[in-house]
């Protein structure tokens, strides 16, 4: 490591330890790191927005290519600044309305496609048979039906319906447990990575 890298990594190692210190309890070091990165991250992402979005999407079309149409979104954007005023803050609703209108319009078809159609098709595409795959498919179908029944809002969960919805919540909980177990792996890996970083830095610092 060069001296520059040693200093850079020194800062990184210090910040790493600041965050780890939180495990013991809240302390000034953690608070310092927390507040530092709140500023750094905001600065970082604002600049990213500025260079990769503002310049190519607002500045260049308007100022260099004179595409008049971009005046509309620019005004919608500037309208958001009325939020700084108590009296005019309501005007920002126009931009928010546009934003939410676009979002929910896209969501209707997208949700039906990715969540409903795709999942439905995947559930019914495979035949039930007497081999392992076929029996698994049967179990999946039964489990999907039971879990769907658990999410019924307008029917009391009683009688046969109650039994099915109970089976449903059991399936969901086993599924969640499995998901939890699988996740543990990735999280340990992250810690391993940090420990390797600290170890590497110490070796570089004191010569291993």
């Amino acid at each position, binding site marked *: 490591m060069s001296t520059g890298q040693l200093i850079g990594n020194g800062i990184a190692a210090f910040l790493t330890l600041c965050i780890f210190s939180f*495990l013991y309890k809240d302390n000034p070091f953690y608070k310092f790191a927390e507040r530092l990165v709140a500023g750094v991250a905001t600065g970082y992402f604002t600049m990213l927005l500025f260079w990769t979005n503002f310049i190519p999407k607002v500045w260049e079309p308007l100022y260099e290519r004179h595409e008049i149409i971009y005046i509309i979104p620019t005004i919608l954007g500037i309208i958001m600044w009325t939020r700084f005023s108590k009296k005019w803050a309501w005007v920002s609703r126009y931009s928010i309305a546009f934003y939410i209108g676009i979002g929910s319009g896209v969501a209707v078809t997208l949700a039906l496609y*990715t969540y409903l159609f*795709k999942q439905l098709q995947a559930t019914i595409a495979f035949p039930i048979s007497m081999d392992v795959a076929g029996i698994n498919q049967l179990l999946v179908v039964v489990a999907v039906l039971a879990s769907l029944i658990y999410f019924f809002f307008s029917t009391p969960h009683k009688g046969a319906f109650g039994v099915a919805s109970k089976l449903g919540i059991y399936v969901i909980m086993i599924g969640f447990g499995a998901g939890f177990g*699988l996740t543990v*792996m990735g999280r*340990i890996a*992250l810690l391993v990575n940090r420990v*390797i970083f600290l170890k590497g830095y110490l070796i570089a610092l004191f010569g291993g």
Partner: protein
Amino acid sequence: MSNDTNRNFWEKLLMIDRRWIYLTIGIVVFVPLLFRIGMPVYVTTEVQNVYDYIDALPEGAVVMIPCEYDPATMAELRPMAYALFRHCFSKNLKILSTSLQIEGVTLVKDDLAMIAAEYGKEYGKDYVFLGYKPYPSVVILNMGENFRKPFPKDYYGNNLDSLPMMKGVINYSSCACIVNINATSGADYWINYANGRYKAPLALGVTAVMATDYYTFLASGQIFGLIGGLKGASEYEKLINHTGPAARAMDVQSIAHTVIVIFIVIGNVAYFASKRKMRNF
């Protein structure tokens, strides 16, 4: 009297300060990094599928390996990228890569160049790195038409047409398959657009957490293989016979998982023991 101390013991165990648990995990992670243990690895079919697919490709075929990982997620995904790069280069396949996550671009660029150097591969002839463009969904769609559309130039500023490898490589249909290594929900775009719209054979390498979500797509046939987290990476390392970072980290995982399970068992023993004692009173 003895009953009383017993109860205190179990109850204390139930209420144990979380910091003891933190400390145990810290030790468990640190110590195995000093010694190599070498646990056996069991290869799952979803990883085997990816390996088989790539292994069967003829020399010179182009494999597209877009990598979307950043400093926070590289722990899990970098070993996977290494293993895939190694596999392709050792089979004399060509790699076309890109990174549609801004924080990962330089990481991926360096990783690819490093493994390429290991195999004496030449940039432009054996591998090409397209770099980054914002809005992954749009970029993925456009690449389905022509790589030159979003990337007239590669990361290093070369014209794509000036690179010998890119001759005749137009879009996904010119690639034998796509293996997307992804730590973000952007993996969905690859499924919906690259596979859904352009019918490119697609496999995913994702973090262990995401893997549960993507089993559905495996079952529905939208992806032909799935490499999940370090476990998947270590399986791939085993398949290509190259012990790498994943295998070492897997040792830590094995022990850490066991320790967590022991915690759970102790917690339950304590729970039932304290409950029984309470009933006695």
